[in-house]
């Protein structure tokens, strides 16, 4: 780690932290403004649903609005109480799963998504980056053509379609994996070996789907960045000095080529999390994405808003960490 004038890490971190807090505030505010920009209110939707069964009296309407916490007062005081909700993680009561609180539903779903999407995303990144280095180094051979072509082919598959294909062949036809849920009805969640094995089997198909559809992006990104660095003078110089091929590839070229890929990793996290909504829906996997889908279908606005905030904040935090890591790895960005 180089430290010197103008590249003091603490100051860099402070700057990044400031930007992160600002972005976080903006995202939280977008989540506040969005429903207010849209036509109709959640209470209208609930009343519309109710009025299919007959006319809704004014008293019922008032009761529904009170129950759903339709905010009173001016926009500023609404914003104040919204921020208070966000800070205290109190998002009220779910419409569709009344009287469960939104927070309890989110905290039930979160571990599944974190473990599934989080682990698989890191795995895909590591695997894809290594393959990318290899294909750039072996450029023009089948070791390059095979992963680049199959990777880009697979990454154009719609997430949900790949999920359906795997569900059909590996689930229904071959019976290799369970087809729905996060664990069997016969096991009880806990830290038993039986449950862990069962949970792993249930996570397999969604995991393979996310892995297959996201690998291509990492491979291509790393390969292209690597080809760029391989053309740089210092790599040519290292080669000319008679260093071993593998040393040049890993110590010189890949070390620098991975930097832009790291930023790409941060940015594409949002895509992976978004894709998991589709994947979780296909497999009925009870994570955040599945919950979001159900919230949308049931017009459960408090739940939907909280989930979207949850997803956005987690992507922002991950991006912030990646950003910090980038800064630590590449002193030039700290200037």
């Amino acid at each position, binding site marked *: 780690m180089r430290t010197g004038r103008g590249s003091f890490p603490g100051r860099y971190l402070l700057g990044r932290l400031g930007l992160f807090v600002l972005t976080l505030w903006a995202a939280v505010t977008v989540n506040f403004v969005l*429903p207010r920009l*849209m036509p109709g209110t959640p209470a209208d939707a609930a009343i519309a649903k109710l009025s299919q069964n007959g006319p809704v009296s004014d008293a019922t309407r008032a009761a529904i609005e009170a129950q759903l916490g339709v905010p009173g007062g001016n926009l500023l005081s609404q914003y104040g109480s919204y921020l208070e909700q966000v800070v205290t993680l109190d998002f009220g009561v779910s419409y569709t799963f009344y009287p469960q609180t939104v927070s309890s539903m989110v905290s039930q779903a979160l571990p599944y998504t974190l473990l599934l999407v989080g682990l698989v995303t890191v795995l895909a990144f590591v695997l894809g980056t290594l393959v990318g280095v290899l294909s750039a180094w072996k450029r023009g051979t089948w070791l390059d053509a095979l992963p680049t072509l199959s990777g880009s082919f697979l990454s*154009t598959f*719609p*997430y949900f*379609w790949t999920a359906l294909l795997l569900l059909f062949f590996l689930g229904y036809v071959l019976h290799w994996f369970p087809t729905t849920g996060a664990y069997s009805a016969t096991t009880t969640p806990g830290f038993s070996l039986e449950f862990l094995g069962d949970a792993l089997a249930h996570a397999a198909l969604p995991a393979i789907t996310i892995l297959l559809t996201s690998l291509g992006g990492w491979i291509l990104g790393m390969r292209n960045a690597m080809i760029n660095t391989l053309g740089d003078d210092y790599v040519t110089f290292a080669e000319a000095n008679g260093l071993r091929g593998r040393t040049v590839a890993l110590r010189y070229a890949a070390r620098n080529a991975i930097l832009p890929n790291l930023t790409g990793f941060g940015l594409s996290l*949002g895509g992976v999390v978004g894709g998991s909504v589709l994947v979780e829906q296909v497999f009925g996997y009870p994570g955040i994405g599945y919950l979001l889908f159900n919230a949308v279908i049931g017009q459960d606005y408090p739940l939907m808003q909280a989930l979207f905030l949850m997803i956005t904040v987690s*992507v922002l935090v991950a991006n912030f960490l990646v950003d910090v890591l980038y800064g630590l790895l590449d002193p030039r960005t700290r200037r």
Partner: protein
Amino acid sequence: MSTRTSSELDVQHAPSALRSAGRVLATLWDNGKARVGLVLLAFFLLLALVGPLLSPYDAKENTFPRSQDVSGAHWLGTTAAGEDVLSQLVHGARISVLVGFTAGLLATVVAVLIGLSWGYTRGWVAEVIGFVVNLFLVIPGLPFMIVIAAYLQNGGIAVIIAVIVITGWAWGARVLRSQTQSLRSRDFVEAARFSGDSAPRIVFREILPNMTSLIVGSFFGAATAAILAEAGLEFLGLGDTSIVSWGTMIYWAQNSSALLTGQWALLFAPGLCIALLALSLTLVNFGVDAVSNPRLREGSRTRKADR
């Protein structure tokens, strides 16, 4: 220099823009992957254009026996509602192509406008634009789309396109900004600045024509993303479920448990079409990448790319 009128400059620019577009196309055709992509893309464009004339039945005609297997009368079988799957598949090309190209084009226009002004301006304006672009970059696209689409229920194709454009322009803007930044200090831009040209004129007449391949590239990227996004939203039932598109076909197939009844064609054919259309655009983009970054050109290991 300063004695030239603007119309003379236009005359000077028009053929060079044409020529550069022609050159881009020629380089694309030279690239093997891009050529496959162009042919595939042309096929889908043609299908979208004249497909309904070729399809055996009307896409919404539901008088056939329900959930039929593949047969001579129905090459891909019929849906649970008694519609011909092949006819739906052919008609569905329209929606994907329309959404992909419209949303891709609009997202690219926004990306060009914002990316170029971001790259050309300095000071607090650039900082503010940068902050907004980064915000849109990190907000996860699909959940954002799902939430907006949920509020604007049953808004139809126009809403879907708007949602995709809102969430899809930021990446292109970022790419175009860095190229603008490097071009703004070049000699010909300096010269235009000293001869008193206005900023918009410099940006759109001097800088923009030099970014053709990057802009074409971000268009194909945005169109691919739009096609996949539209299919995803339709699949979740958040689009207009009354239209016939590849996304809604899968939505209805899933709704009627086509997997369990073994109607593979109903599920797999539309998905394959989405994948192939997206693939064709990705392949073309490989070629565009090679144009804008000579180091990626097949077999060449040239030194410095010109950026």
